[in-house]
């Protein structure tokens, strides 16, 4: 069956439109991440924003440009390490269908 079944999350995010802000609306407290062994943010995020930092595996990188602004990380991070604010007006995700 066709390609629609084989899309990766990157492929999917490529179809979503954004106005990318020059600064991040997400800040992570790395001291708390160090103590977090399960790192659920790698999984619960609908926009695949959090990734293991390759040079510091107990830290995560934040690809804020992919954020769908769902808010899941504000409830799913067990250590409340994520400071998430709304992007500036008209910035961030811009759904055409929604």
């Amino acid at each position, binding site marked *: 069956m066709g390609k629609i079944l084989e899309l990766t999350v990157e492929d999917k995010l490529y179809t979503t439109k954004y106005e990318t802000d020059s600064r991040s609306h997400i800040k992570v407290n790395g001291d708390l991440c160090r103590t977090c062994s399960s790192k659920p943010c790698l999984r619960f995020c609908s926009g695949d924003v959090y990734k293991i930092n390759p040079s510091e595996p107990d830290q995560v990188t934040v690809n804020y440009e992919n954020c*769908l602004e769902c808010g899941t990380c504000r409830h*799913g991070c067990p250590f409340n390490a994520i400071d998430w604010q709304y992007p500036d*007006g008209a910035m961030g995700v811009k*759904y055409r269908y*929604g």
Partner: protein
Amino acid sequence: MSAEDTVKVDAIVVGGGPGGLAAALTMAQGGLEVILVERGEYAGSKNVGGLFYGTILNQLIPDAFKQAPIERTVSKRSITYLGDGTHMSLTFGADAWSQPPYNNTYVVHRAQFDRWLASQVEEAGATLLEGMVVDGLIYEGEGAGRKAVGVQLRGDEAFYADVIVLADGANCLVSEKVREELAMPGGKIKQEYAVGVKEIISLPKETIEARFNLKDNEGVAYDFLGVPFEGLIGGGFIYTAKDSIHLGSVARIESLVESGFTPSGLNDRFKQHPAVSRLIDGGELLEYSGHMLPEGGYDAIGSLTANGVMIVGDAAGLLNMSLYKEGTNHAMESGMYAGQAAVAAKEKKDYSRSGLALYEEKLAEGIALKDVKKYKDLPDILTSAPELLSLYPKKINQLMVDYFTVNAEPKAVTQKAAMKNFMKDMSKIKLLRNAFKARKLM
């Protein structure tokens, strides 16, 4: 800044979803001077949904369904259990659903629909301020007399109003902050959230109509549970738009974290089930989206009124998270009541908590809160009896497989074996207890 430069209106609404738009419309129709602030470039650009229930919409804008950008009207609904290589559905359709007002159930693209609704609100006289973020409220007074008097716009000035309606949706940073700052009592339990992701998949109109057996602008709303969602409090849906399909999955955040699935991965499991994949075969992805839903139900709803403030819609937790997933009409109903309370408060010149009491009085009399209350035990039931979403449908599905399997046995033997297999692993007492619980799911 001098006093003349200060912007002061009767009412400010924070958020241009169905809740905020209904509030702004009601207040503008009632003669109030209203500003609605929306952080997206246009109202709808941050919003995700599937069906729009139009009861309040058609009340506030007579025959709205005739002009609104509705993709298809829902003429057929179904619930499907997805097994391992099997599927079992209950489908219902009604001829009346293909006649105006189409059972008030519409498939819409929310980014386009909310934008249209905002244009109607503007036409009614409200001012839309799009592309502006409200960072918080401005207060006067101390203690019990503390009241909200305005909103702080990010990177800009403050705007002042007698009353502020908070309609900032499920991811409601402003409402959360105001609850704390004005010490508004919370609900019995903490709000709980689910996350939903959705794919809009394009297919030719004719293909959709042939595949789903539809005429003209008829559409379907199919809900799914079963194997792709095993261990999760969640399910999937397919709604048909004109020349695209909404395919999405929703799961409670804690259950998702436990399962280890990503939201996108969960939607893939759903999409790849053979009973589902054939419905979207040949389609192309137009857009991927994500959004939360408040699922704590009635017990998570706290006080919704404070001095100069009312909270409506998803920010108030007014979603019916049963199979109906009703949020749009509940948001509009609460927005309408908040608007009516603001109009009455202006007549009395009393915007204090007691001056706005009409809002929660109307809400208590209305449909949204009653429906959310009817399902108040649902969050608890789904956590305490996960069999209801997994084991039992699975068992019934197996019963169907055993029952309909064509083999060389006489029917009496097949049926007896099917029943025996069905009762295996099922505690009769638990079955009874759960049957009682299941009634509350309906």
